[in-house]
């Protein structure tokens, strides 16, 4: 039986293992390319006060991800692909949950961890790729030729749709190191404040959910209870039938055993009861090392 269980467990593990390998591009990557700007005239400046092209990556998960050892790859036009390995040992490579990291594509890695070896060609289509530290391609994007200070970005952080941003309309801002869709309000809060100012909607919805949850539990345990009761009654009936069958031949023998047990118990119990006590008190001497004879003798 144990071997069967072990077999099932191993099969499950191997199934999970097989289904999780052999991908060329990870579909559930925690870190994604999020926004790219190829021609920076008057946009965000780096720490040296220089306008450079930049590539933004985004941690989609709710846990910190360390991108040390990850690779950024850039291929402009017919040029060869240039890789930049994110150096290890810099605490800033740890991207906090749902946060961004910005890499300057200025070809000057000596300026810091976030200045990469390659440049983006603003006159051509650029291919940008992101690999994890095991060399697996996490994300890639082809960036079209863009106007100055316009970016090619996901519509919202981690959204599948890429759009050109750079206007002054809402949701069209270039947003280095911040959310692609600027959150100016708490939509849930405002929705409740506007459409349910009295709280009646919330009360009805929430009470319905509470009742539904507990009604489902009620139904489950009502059915389970009925099942258990019917099982118990069937079992007790079968026990009674078996007992009746056996008791036909052995009833006299069993009764005798029971009487004998009762008689023994009564004898033992009553044997310890004295009608008259002797009236003699006996003080038993309690000896120990402390009152032993050799301790009390004096020389």
């Amino acid at each position: 039986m144990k071997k069967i269980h072990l077999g099932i467990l191993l099969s499950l593990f191997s199934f999970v293992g097989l289904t999780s390998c052999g991908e060329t591009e990870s579909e559930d990557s925690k870190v994604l390319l999020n926004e790219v700007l190829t021609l920076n005239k008057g946009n965000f400046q780096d720490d040296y006060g220089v306008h450079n092209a930049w590539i933004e990556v985004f941690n989609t998960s709710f846990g910190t991800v360390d991108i040390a050892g990850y690779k950024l790859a850039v291929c402009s036009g017919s040029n060869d692909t240039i890789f930049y390995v994110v150096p290890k040992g810099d605490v800033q490579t740890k991207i906090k949950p749902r946060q961004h990291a910005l890499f300057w594509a200025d070809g000057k890695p000596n300026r810091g961890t976030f200045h990469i070896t390659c440049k983006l060609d603003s006159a051509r289509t650029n291919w940008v790729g992101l690999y994890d530290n095991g060399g697996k391609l996490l994300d890639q994007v082809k960036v079209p030729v863009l106007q100055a200070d316009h970016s090619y970005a996901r519509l919202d952080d981690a959204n599948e749709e890429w759009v050109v941003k750079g206007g002054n309309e809402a949701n069209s801002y270039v947003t280095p190191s911040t959310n692609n869709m600027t959150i100016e309000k708490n939509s849930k809060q405002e929705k409740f404040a506007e459409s349910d100012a009295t709280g009646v909607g919330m009360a009805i919805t929430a009470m319905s959910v509470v009742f539904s949850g507990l009604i489902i539990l009620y139904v489950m345990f009502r059915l389970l209870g009925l099942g258990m009761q019917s099982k118990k009654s069937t079992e007790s009936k079968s026990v009674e039938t078996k007992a009746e069958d056996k008791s036909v031949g052995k009833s006299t023998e069993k009764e005798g055993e029971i009487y004998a047990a009762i008689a023994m118990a009564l004898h033992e119990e009553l044997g310890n009861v004295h009608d008259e006590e002797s009236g003699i008190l006996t003080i038993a001497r309690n000896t120990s090392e402390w009152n032993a004879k050799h301790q009390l003798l004096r020389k």
Partner: protein
Amino acid sequence: MGEFINFLGNNLADFWTYTGFANATTGHLVMILVGLVFIYLAVAKEFEPMLLIPIGFGMLIGNIPFNTEAGLNVGIYEEGSVLNILYQGVTSGWYPPLIFLGIGAMTDFSALISNPKLLLIGAAAQFGIFGAYMIAMAIGFEPSQAGAIAIIGGADGPTAIFLSSKLAPNLMGAIAVSAYSYMALVPVIQPPIMRLLTTKKERLMRMPAPRKVSHTEKVIFPIVGLLLTCFLVPSGLPLLGMLFFGNLLKESGVTRRLAETARGPLIDTITILLGVTVGASTQASEFLTVDSILIFGLGALSFVIATTSGVLFVKLFNLILPKHKRINPLIGNAGVSAVPDSARISQTVGLEYDPTNYLLMHAMGPNVAGVIGSAVAAGILLGFLM
């Protein structure tokens, strides 16, 4: 010599500025007085002593005045101080799930399993939460604040702390103290409402003895309970997950040591830390506000609404139940999940009218259903308002 005396005088004057006497304000004294009242209620009246003693003493700790500009790093709101580190369990919300683990390991759901319709009373009593939510909205609180305040009606301290730490951290001290205070005052709040809403005939109603629940049912309950409630309200997972996990440790029968740790040393340790830090978080400067007074008022109302809705629901439910299966409305108050106090009150009030009518076992059903119901309600509020 004169210079030396001057030096000593300056030293003493400097020292004086660091003392509590020099920094005391009326607010500090008021809060110290409130802390002393809590300790008095716990010691002399035995109102929830396990909670009120740590909270009351925490209030004394949190309201010792000190020079906040001296950088002593002793206050609960000063990052890196010992109290602040202990307070992380409250602000990050990991004390309440651990308390729920212990509650699960000490709760017997037999009464509920044997008579599952009592679950519905636990659901009805949650109207206290949403009634208070509506009132809070009418007063002018923001939806997230109203949700955090309303959870006081769930009569569940850990749930109230968990939810308020997420929805309205600035109101958490007042909400926690209010929730625990009213839980301690359940014996004062509930009986008059129960008497008011029931007739003598209803109070004398007898309920059939609950059937014996098998070990299999007890083991299945936490597993099915977790899967059903958390699939419906995943945001309630930290509380419900730990509650049902603790219960499985208890009922499986093969993890006795783990269950004993969860319901013994673990819950005791966390209760001490939670109580003291919640008490200490009521620093006068943060706590003595108009909002706190409103929160206390709303808290009282939510308990009244919860008790009322529980009792009235039983009366309504009885209209559709066959005569031999009717429920004594005196156990309706037990839907308020102050375990086991509200169930004990059902028993006490029931015995006043018929000294042979024991309602405790029946009242434990809605009582533990209330724990599940309030955790589900907290999950809903979190899902909607976070």
